């Protein structure tokens, strides 16, 4: 096969303009436009030709975006429900999918026609995902799956699920897993909203009762599901720990400062006021330090020697965020006894109209920051072991059959 010739920036821009002649975002709906974008190889230019890409470097994706914004006031960016499909589903299909899967699934992932979700976490397998216990049993050309998944974003909108499940309980935990594409419309798949601390249901629980999956929908080999899952997880890590606000006093810090500046005069004694002011100053500093550390990480990445700054960000950000909203609540004092938004179940994010409303909501929502995407405790293990080189804990679950490992 001939090597694809590297495309220069101008050729790529010309190609974008050709797409815009055929379909223009200002006159085309998102799905139709993104279908065309895919056909032209401009969906994800770092994918191979024929799969929505042109075999270019990932950073050339910015050029496509830039050229479209030059010629259109409307930009059809990634639909919110498609973030998981595009960020994790597509790379997994490209790496492990059959030719037919790539041809049929990738265009619809990109266009937003088909939403994807990730079925990894279980009630009994949070930090220890590889210890999960949903079970698939082979039945001819099919597998029959039973179990429960949890923390599944957009499951209620999804056409396809990336399912990690156990296929061999006699193997050590990492070796007994397989990875399937699950048809979310299949009989036995039940999606329930997961009612959370804020009153919202950002996530779902997914129950699998005798769900049949064709063997052909297994990605990777039987027993190699963990390796496939790592591909998915690596693509997930990219998104977390973004390094806080991009400018001084911006973002959430600005909201805290607003709460502070709008505080009820006289509600706190001078001594309490001084203590609160110090806490606000600390939060301001913390967010500055996050921003500066992210900036330093970018600078050292550019210089080709990435340091520990990046790994530090996720842990720090979670703890800083929780502390910051606790401070906001303490500034409001007894006014925080009221929770105006109420706790009626809703599946869309609430949009409080006041900065106090935002603070009350974030006070609750931020508890998840040190749990989602790796708990702070797991992050400290990672920093301790992979960055500082400290020895791991003795493991009792590594070399033994999964079925013999104690579980709660």
């Amino acid at each position: 096969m001939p090597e694809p010739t590297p495309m220069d920036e101008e050729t790529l821009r010309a190609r974008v303009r050709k797409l815009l002649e055929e379909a223009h975002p200002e006159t085309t709906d998102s799905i139709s436009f993104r279908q065309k974008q895919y056909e032209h190889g401009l969906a994800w230019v770092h994918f191979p030709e024929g799969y929505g890409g042109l075999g270019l470097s990932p950073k050339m994706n910015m050029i496509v975006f830039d050229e479209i914004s030059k010629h259109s006031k409307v930009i059809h960016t990634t639909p919110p429900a498609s973030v998981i499909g595009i960020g994790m589903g597509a790379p997994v299909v490209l790496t492990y999918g059959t030719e037919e899967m790539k041809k049929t699934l990738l265009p619809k992932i990109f266009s937003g026609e088909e939403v994807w979700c990730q079925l990894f976490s279980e009630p009994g397998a949070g930090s220890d995902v590889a210890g999960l216990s949903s079970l698939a049993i082979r039945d001819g050309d099919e597998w029959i799956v039973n179990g429960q998944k949890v923390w599944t974003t957009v499951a209620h909108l999804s056409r396809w699920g990336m399912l990690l499940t156990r296929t061999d309980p006699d193997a050590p935990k990492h070796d007994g897993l397989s990875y399937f594409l699950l048809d979310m419309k299949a009989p036995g798949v039940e999606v329930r909203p997961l009612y959370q601390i804020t009153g919202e249901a950002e996530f779902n629980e997914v129950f699998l009762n005798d769900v049949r999956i064709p063997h052909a929908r297994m990605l990777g080999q039987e027993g190699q599901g963990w390796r496939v899952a790592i591909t998915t997880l690596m693509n997930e890590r990219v998104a977390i720990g973004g390094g806080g606000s991009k400018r001084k006093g911006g973002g959430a810090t600005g909201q805290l400062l607003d709460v502070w500046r709008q505080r009820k005069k006289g509600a706190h004694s001078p001594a309490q006021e001084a203590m609160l002011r110090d806490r606000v100053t600390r939060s301001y500093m913390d967010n500055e330090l996050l921003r500066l550390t992210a900036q330093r990480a970018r600078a050292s990445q550019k210089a080709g020697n990435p340091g520990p700054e990046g790994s530090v960000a996720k842990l720090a950000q979670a703890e800083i965020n929780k502390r910051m909203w606790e401070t906001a609540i303490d500034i409001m004092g007894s006014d925080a006894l009221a929770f105006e938004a109420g706790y009626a179940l809703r599946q869309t994010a609430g949009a409080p109209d006041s900065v106090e409303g935002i603070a009350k909501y974030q006070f609750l929502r931020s508890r998840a920051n040190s749990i989602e995407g790796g708990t702070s405790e797991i992050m400290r293990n990672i920093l301790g072991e992979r960055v500082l080189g400290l020895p791991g804990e003795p493991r009792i679950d590594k070399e033994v059959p999964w079925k013999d490992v104690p579980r709660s």
Partner: protein
Amino acid sequence: MPIEMSLTDEHEELRATLRAFLNECSDEATVREQMSTERGYDPDVWTQMAEQMGLAGLIIPEEFGGAGYGYVELLVVMEEMGRALLCSPYLSTAVLAANALMHCADEKSQKELLTEIAAGRMVAAVAHAEPNGRWDIEGLEMTATRSGDQWTLSGEKTWVLDGGSAQVILVLARTDSGLSLFRVDPEAPGLRREAVPPLDLTRKISQLHFEDAPAELISAGDQSANFERVLALTTAALSAEQMGGAQWCLETAVEYAKTRLQFGRPIGSYQAIKHKCADMLVETEFARSAAYAACFAAAEQEDDFLEMADLAQSACSEAFFHAAAETIQIHGGMGFTWELPVHLYFKRAKASDLLFGDAAQHRESLANRVGL
């Protein structure tokens, strides 16, 4: 705030040179030897640092015999000195006094004194704080007395770094034109220098008693704003030193956690210890960001420099102190002994925090600047 905060290859070379030098001249035995002397440093090493390495005049302009470097180079130098716990009049002379002269003094004194400092022939002390315990400019109460062309000073100055060994004392006092800088001969009649037994043995401090001591006025006009900047530049440099100290603590604690065995395994394999180390890493990296931000802002004379200096003082003071405290804890009983050097860093950490007004005062200053 500067866009780029990264060191060049030249900076890394400077670091390597310094580390090699400090491994020789500031190893633990030397630190212990020097800290037990009255002077508190080795004059030969000080001369060598000035003459062979150009360190005494690092930030002094070339016209006054200095190297004319900026705060990014100073950042590297201070970080390495902090790591090695160097006993030296560097902070008092090459940073605080040099800055006071560069920002507050007349040209004649600059020429005379900066040249001597850069050449390593003069240790200089700045007398600033007073027994009222305040470190802000408004807290300065000493008022100079004039009779004809002669000025005299009376009163007390506290916590004067290297006040005992200095060959020149620079004193902040008030005159009709506002805050002014005076030059006082350490041997002047009416000046009594009293050594204070220090919490941190690696930096010597004195209390100065003035009783109609003759002084030479070497500034013109009110120096309040200039001296505020001098203090901020000094704390920015000090923050880099604190960050270097924190990094030493982190590395020392981690190394011990890898090798100390209890209950049949390295203590670093227990999460109780591992998580302490991870938190130290986070805080030290944040301190690094803060020290970089302050020193890069100083180097490029950014508008938000004073704010960044406050931020760095608070972040680096706390990071160094926590790192030193946890390093004692991780070393268990040994960490409490005189034999291990950890207590020297612990004392340096607290003393550095308190030296120019503590972290809480700098956060208050930051809050005022940001308008909280």
